């Protein structure tokens, strides 16, 4: 039995034919759309490497059934930079050494973008750490990650204040 699902991925509308209902959103992105920036770590919702933003909310794409997300808007790491200009969260991760091997980084960055949009953490490092606890980093770059999120939040806050003004 074939299934059809329509997703908007990084602003582009895609209709995908699925021959199997078991395909997760993660496998669809990586294996059918060749968007391999989103990483498969544990594949069980424990590590956060597969984090993407679906309809404005950060989620674990490994625990999302693709077919159930018919009509959803998906943002992945490939869609956050604007042409040659990195996203402020990407720039902050580089500036603060928020990574070592880099495997968890796409998930960390998508989770950080989600956290900043949620607007709950403010400038409190404790709230940032708590808000990022769904993203494991086995290199232990947590100090840099926290600093990067705090700085990106400041940058993005300044940008949005300029837009309002």
């Amino acid at each position: 039995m074939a299934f059809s699902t329509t997703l908007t991925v990084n602003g582009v509308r895609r209709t995908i034919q699925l021959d199997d209902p078991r395909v997760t959103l993660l496998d669809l992105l990586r294996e059918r759309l060749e968007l391999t920036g989103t990483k498969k770590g544990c594949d069980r919702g424990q590590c956060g490497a597969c984090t993407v933003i679906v309809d404005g909310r950060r989620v674990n794409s490994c625990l999302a059934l693709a077919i159930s997300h018919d009509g959803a808007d998906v943002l992945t790491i490939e869609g956050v930079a604007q042409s040659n200009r990195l996203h402020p969260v990407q720039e902050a991760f580089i500036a603060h050494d928020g990574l070592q091997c880099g495997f968890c980084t796409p998930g960390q960055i998508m989770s950080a973008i989600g956290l900043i949009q949620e607007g709950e953490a403010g400038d409190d490092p404790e709230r940032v750490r708590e808000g990022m606890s769904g993203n494991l980093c086995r290199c232990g770059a947590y100090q840099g990650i926290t600093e990067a999120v705090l700085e990106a939040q400041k940058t993005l806050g300044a940008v949005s204040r300029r837009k309002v003004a």
Partner: protein
Amino acid sequence: MKTFDYVRPATVREAVAAASEPGAAYLAAGTNLLDLMKGGVSRPSRLVDINHLPDLDHIEDLAGGGVRIGALVRNAELARDRGFARRFPAVAEALLSGASAQLRNAATVGGNLLQRTRCAYFYDVASACNKRDPGSGCDARGGDNRLHAALGWSKSCIATHPSDFCVPLVALDAVVEIEGKAGRREMPLEKFHRLPGDAPERETMLEPGEMIVAVRLPAEAAGFAAHARYLKVRERTSYAFAVVSAAAALRVEGDRIADARLALGGVAAKPWRAREAEVILTGTRVDGALFHRAAEAALADAKPSGDNGFKIELARRIAARALSLAAAGTPERVPALPASPFAPVSGDVIHA
């Protein structure tokens, strides 16, 4: 993962009909179900996807002061609803202490009630488990069982219910609305989950095909808003299930407790309402020694089911501490580390 038929009903009635077939399971977010299916623990032959059903994602204030929460409301959405969090702060704190931000953004209210135990022997298909495979035995009983039940367990199953959300809900007399082939019915959440007895595979009162459509909190539950906390011991600071947890809620008039609620998590196959403790607390003066007496009463029937005797004393202390924190007053804002026992009562930063 075993393959399955995928069904996307347009109405609740269609969903119930589709899910009444043997081997069918409802799919909401799937944050627990897909994990179980990947491990071969759950093997449904049909998934009935309820994500696209209308009207199940509302948080609705009821005339008279209660609230009705649709089964598809996401955990984070409920916890961040300012009106809800102000009136039911212990529920918001419990939600925010559970899982990770990503999971809370996806996981639903109905799914939280129906999530399965995290007993490692239930998850390991090579182990004997009466819950997964009735009659096969229980490898947890002679195994690594320091996190297992201390109340209401049986020889056939010593697993616990893992929910945080359900603990304050059961303390606050939440009601579950259920739709089935025979129509709509409802029951107190306290009666919704079953103790294992000799049939641990039957975890709730739901009949085949029945679906949770909403959870309600009565108006009286908001009367505890000024003195309501959730407290949870975890084996790491964040993103972990409860070793033991407690929801405490007090209605304080002058220096007296006019009404008290206490429930425990991580100790039994259901969220455990401690009514004996509530009787001791009600009508008495606010006092730390009293909180310890109430906590003793809450655990009076507790028995270790393995290497978990420590959980009984831990549960007493967490219950007494949750009552003290509730008496001190609900903080203006949910703490940076929600429900953390390491948080000072003053709300200061913990890891400065």
